[in-house]
């Protein structure tokens, strides 16, 4: 007998597959927005693991998304295309492995960025990840084989409803499962009081690295999905504003809350779509929203339980 959480995951995957079979009946524009929601859920939930549950402040989530997007794009469109064609297997069948490769690439980069900076206490991580996001952007702009600042075009649209929401379901499950165990309480403990956590025998650096690398991995998956949804990626699309959008989803949802962050990801994706006519001015709306929120409900919009609680199951 499977634990209840895994049954819920399987039902979610089956539902995503079922809806996916009928997705051709959905209006193209609506479907594009809806698949974007799935991707933003992955981004918000994975960042919540770092910023919410473990209490570290990362500002570079778009950077990891970029690594995943370019790694996956390279395999299906860029230099890796010929290599995949030589294998004789249909690229659509290989898509989950392409996504996985994007996730792993982001995780490796996450380890390289996180391992030195997570040893430090305080706000160093915010500064390091902020710099990392910019560095990734500049590096990508200067690699001609990946399109340079023009970006990578003609990426096949492999991202379907099933992949977008299936991956979102797996991300939510993974974040939930990681935190909901005796070892998982350690993430919350590190966020609450690092010195007390050390005194309880928790290797805080190890916890922070696990959260950071896992978060980067799923951001990489989201990047791969994004590339194969839009068909076009450019370094400018993964800038600081993108990172901030994800941070706002986490803060709005309530740091370290599973459901709240998912709701926030859905709402903000729809909101930013509605504000599309205003172009870059929507960042002003975002900022105003954040200020209002911090004044009115610093604990997040969607928080209702008093104690953050981990349950078994």
């Amino acid at each position, binding site marked *: 007998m499977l*634990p209840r*959480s*895994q049954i819920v995951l399987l039902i979610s995957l089956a539902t995503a597959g079922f809806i996916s079979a009928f997705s051709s009946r959905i209006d193209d524009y609506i479907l594009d927005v809806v698949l974007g929601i799935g991707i933003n859920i992955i981004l918000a939930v994975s960042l919540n693991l770092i910023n919410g549950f473990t209490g570290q402040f990362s500002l570079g989530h778009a950077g990891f998304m970029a690594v995943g997007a370019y790694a996956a794009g390279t395999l299906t469109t860029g230099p890796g295309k010929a290599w995949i064609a030589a294998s004789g297997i249909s690229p659509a069948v290989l898509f989950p492995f392409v996504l996985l490769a994007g996730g792993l690439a982001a995780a490796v980069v996450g380890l390289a960025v996180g391992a030195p900076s997570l040893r430090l206490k305080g706000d160093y991580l915010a500064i390091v990840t902020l710099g990392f996001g910019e560095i990734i952007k500049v590096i990508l702009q200067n690699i001609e084989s990946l399109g340079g600042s023009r970006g990578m075009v003609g990426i096949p649209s492999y991202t379907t409803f099933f992949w977008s929401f299936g991956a979102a379901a797996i991300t939510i499950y*993974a974040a939930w*499962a*990681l935190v*909901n*165990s*005796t*070892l*998982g*309480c*350690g993430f*919350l*403990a590190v*966020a*609450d*009081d690092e*010195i*007390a*956590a*050390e*005194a*309880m*025998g*928790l*290797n*805080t650096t190890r916890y922070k690295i*696990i959260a950071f690398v896992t978060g980067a991995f799923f951001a990489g998956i989201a990047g791969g999905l994004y590339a194969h949804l839009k068909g076009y990626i450019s370094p400018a699309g993964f800038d600081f504003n993108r990172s901030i959008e994800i941070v706002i989803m986490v803060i709005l949802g309530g740091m370290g809350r599973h459901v709240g962050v998912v709701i926030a990801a859905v709402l903000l994706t729809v909101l930013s779509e509605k504000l599309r006519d205003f172009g870059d001015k929507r960042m002003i709306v975002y900022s105003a929203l954040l200020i209002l929120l911090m004044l009115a409900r610093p604990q997040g919009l969607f928080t209702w339980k*008093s*104690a*953050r*609680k*981990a349950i*078994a*199951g």
Partner: protein
Amino acid sequence: MNSTHPKPGRLLHLDNVTIRFGGLTAVSSVSASLGENELTGLIGPNGAGKTTVFNMITGVYAPTEGAIHFENRPVTGLKPFAITERGIARTFQNIRLFPSLSVFDNVRVAFHLHVTQSTAHSLTRGRKFRAEEREIIDRTRALLDIFQLTRVQDEPAKSLPYGDQRRLEIVRALATRPKLLLLDEPAAGMNPAEKVELMKLIRFIREKFRLSILLVEHDMKVVMGICERIHVLEYGRKIAEGTPAEIRQHPAVVAAYLGKEVNH
């Protein structure tokens, strides 16, 4: 006392431990040892270096000179979490709970040292993982029950009254299953009635969990009331060691606390 080898059969042994912060010698060649199931007090006037000694034992600071042995193995310079793994748990002078976690999870997280399943197992959630989690939940419940905290187990730790927070911090430390428990000024901020309760609690813990306790305390009544041996520090040096009766009459201790008689 200058032997570099720890005495056999001693749980904790400090051998000429010194720590300097720049030009200041906060603790100067202090030697002391603690036996199994012993209740020891560490006292001294303000700024004598009691908490610094505590912080060296728990790995917050590494001593500049000297060695610390626990169960005849060196623990000098280990990180705090590694020292807790060896079996030394502590509480803090200014309570440090996990404020947003429930009372239950505060204790549950401390059981992590005895978890055999890895972090990856929490993703697969197999039969063994679930059995172990259930066992930890039962043990957490049992521990909360002993200390009458079951009633508030779902409350966030920060919402507890002061006395309960102190108790919870001790319970959390016990969940790591220590062989030595270090209590940093547990009576701070307590009224006389609460202090009597605390003394009972400390005695009870020693009996029930069969461990050694080292107590840093300001309150003489508490220290003299429960400790079997007392070490006295002044200006970073150890000036006396003995039973409460001996310490009460020790001229150096009396001088340190009340000042010396002036010879006319």
